[in-house]
């Protein structure tokens, strides 16, 4: 069901005209109201008058996660703080999280965007939607919640966890749509099986899954085991949260909300804009965000764009699945983890050059993704007393938990265990590679 045919099936020339109009307004806004952007534009010798066509987008500077860190917490806002009615947050590259404020209008715009997202995936107002994305600072919980309510579906706000009860509710309340991460969908299946329940016998028919990368194979597994259509959804906190793009039931790419986001792909090395169809890093400019608009945000996600109209009738360009990252970020249990965060903790606690290895155990039956960090015991931190070594381990674990936002195991290891390599150290391995 197309919720907003006027925008979703707008002919591309008209859509581009709308985007240009909105871009011009946004560029002027950030130039006038956000010192960071004014400085960045001046450095590139560009003003809002220089934006006359969509191609002029390439004149504007990029924004990166580092800019969020350097302007933490409110330095990128385009409105006074009093106008913000909500904050969401996600992992930053070091100890500081990314802060995303929303005005009331942002919340309303986002809710409508999410209603459209769910409708595109096949949700209707008659659905019973169980929202198992985490509620709180994470954009997934409240993002999907407001969208589902706006659509008119009935929301069961379970958030994540308490899996046995979730399964009970799926059965007893007649849940038809589940929104959660793909790995959690598999955990639901495994736990149900343990309980002697076949989720295919429930009224579950649709899953809107995202917040972490997942393969076609995983989709097939999920669809088969839960008896649902599993739809991919994409977004990021820096530009809004979920709602940037979503698949329609044809599952041939995720439709981007191009009336709200101007997207491009670039060569991650040179920054040069790429033509449609070529794989590159997704860059997003917000066209309707009020509290914290973003110009040319480098997502680090590698995708390709397809502007052809879809079988469903939508004209909004589709993006492929994410095929990789142009940085070293990991996603573990739906949470972004940067090796640089880990490094900052080790430097903080150990006070010496950290040699570490991140070992990831990817999700499989009964178990969600697990993160283990091997930390080399240097002479500076080594003690002859067991109590002190255990204390070190404990301190590392608790600092790591608080900076990463998820629990990671710490394993203290001998110097020989972590390979020294010439050039860039391989910091992350999968458990299967060990």
């Amino acid at each position, binding site marked *: 069901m197309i919720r907003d045919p006027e925008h979703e099936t707008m002919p591309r020339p008209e859509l581009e005209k709308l985007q240009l109009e909105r871009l011009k307004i946004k560029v002027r806004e950030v130039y006038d109201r956000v010192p960071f952007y004014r400085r960045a534009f001046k450095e590139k010798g560009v003003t809002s008058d220089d934006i006359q066509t969509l191609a002029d987008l390439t004149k504007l500077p990029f924004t990166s996660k580092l800019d969020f860190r350097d302007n933490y917490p409110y330095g990128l806002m385009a409105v006074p703080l009093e106008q913000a009615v909500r904050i969401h947050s996600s992992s930053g590259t070091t100890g500081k999280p990314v802060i995303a404020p929303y005005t009331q209008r942002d919340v309303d715009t986002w809710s409508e965007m999410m209603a459209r997202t769910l409708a595109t995936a096949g949700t209707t107002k008659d659905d019973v939607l169980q929202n198992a994305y985490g509620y709180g600072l994470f954009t997934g919980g409240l993002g999907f919640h407001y969208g589902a309510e706006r659509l008119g579906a009935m929301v069961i706000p379970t958030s994540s966890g308490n899996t046995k009860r979730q399964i009970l509710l799926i059965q007893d309340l007649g849940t038809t749509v589940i929104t959660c991460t793909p790995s959690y969908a598999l955990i639901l299946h495994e736990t149900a099986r343990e309980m002697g329940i076949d989720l295919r016998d429930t009224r579950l028919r649709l899953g809107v899954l995202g917040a972490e990368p997942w393969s076609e194979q995983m989709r097939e597994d999920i669809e088969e085991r839960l008896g649902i259509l599993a739809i991919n959804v994409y977004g990021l906190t820096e530009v809004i949260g979920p709602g940037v793009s979503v698949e329609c039931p044809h599952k041939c790419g995720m439709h981007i909300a191009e009336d709200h986001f101007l997207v491009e792909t670039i060569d991650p090395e040179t920054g040069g804009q790429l033509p449609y169809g070529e794989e590159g890093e997704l860059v997003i400019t917000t066209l309707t965000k009020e509290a914290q608009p973003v110009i040319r945000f480098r997502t680090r996600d590698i995708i390709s764009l397809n502007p052809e109209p879809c079988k469903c009738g939508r004209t909004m360009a589709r993006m492929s699945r994410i095929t990789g990252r142009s940085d070293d970020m990991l996603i573990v249990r739906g949470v972004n983890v940067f090796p640089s965060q880990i490094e900052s903790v080790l430097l903080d606690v150990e006070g010496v050059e950290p040699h570490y290895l991140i070992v990831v155990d990817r999700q499989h039956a009964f178990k969600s993704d697990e993160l283990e960090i091997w930390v080399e015991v240097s002479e500076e931190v*080594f003690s002859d007393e067991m109590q002190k070594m255990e204390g070190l381990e404990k301190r590392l674990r608790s600092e790591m938990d608080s900076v990463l936002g998820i629990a990671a195991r710490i394993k*203290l290891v*001998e110097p020989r265990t972590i390979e020294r390599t010439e050039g860039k150290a391989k910091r992350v391995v999968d458990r299967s590679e060990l």
Partner: protein
Amino acid sequence: MRIKQVSVFVENESGRLEAILEALQREKINIRALSVSDTAEFGIARMILDNPEEGLQALRQAGFTTRIDWMLSAQIPDVPGGLLNSVAKPMAKAGINIKYFYAFIGQVGENKAMVVFKPDDIEKAEEVLKSLSVGS
């Protein structure tokens, strides 16, 4: 008397202790006392070597994380109650906590045993031993 102890960080995996002993044997270093304390993941091997500085180098070269700390050694009568009366009771009486200790391997003297330990206050502990004329 004060005595140097070499301690080594060891992962709890087979072959690690062997590697330590081999590194020492290669440099012809003799072990006088040895204790390994462990958790599920790792251990700390503590040793009294006949040449602690050379031992430290040998272990470093073999890629181990290692250090030297001062311990106290005490010669005690090799009879029931020897350790209790010569070391444990006096330390407790003086309010000194012993972090760990272990014993020497092999012959020390006629009817004598030798222990090495880490008190939380090494100076005070040394005084206590001296005042009791506990041999070293």
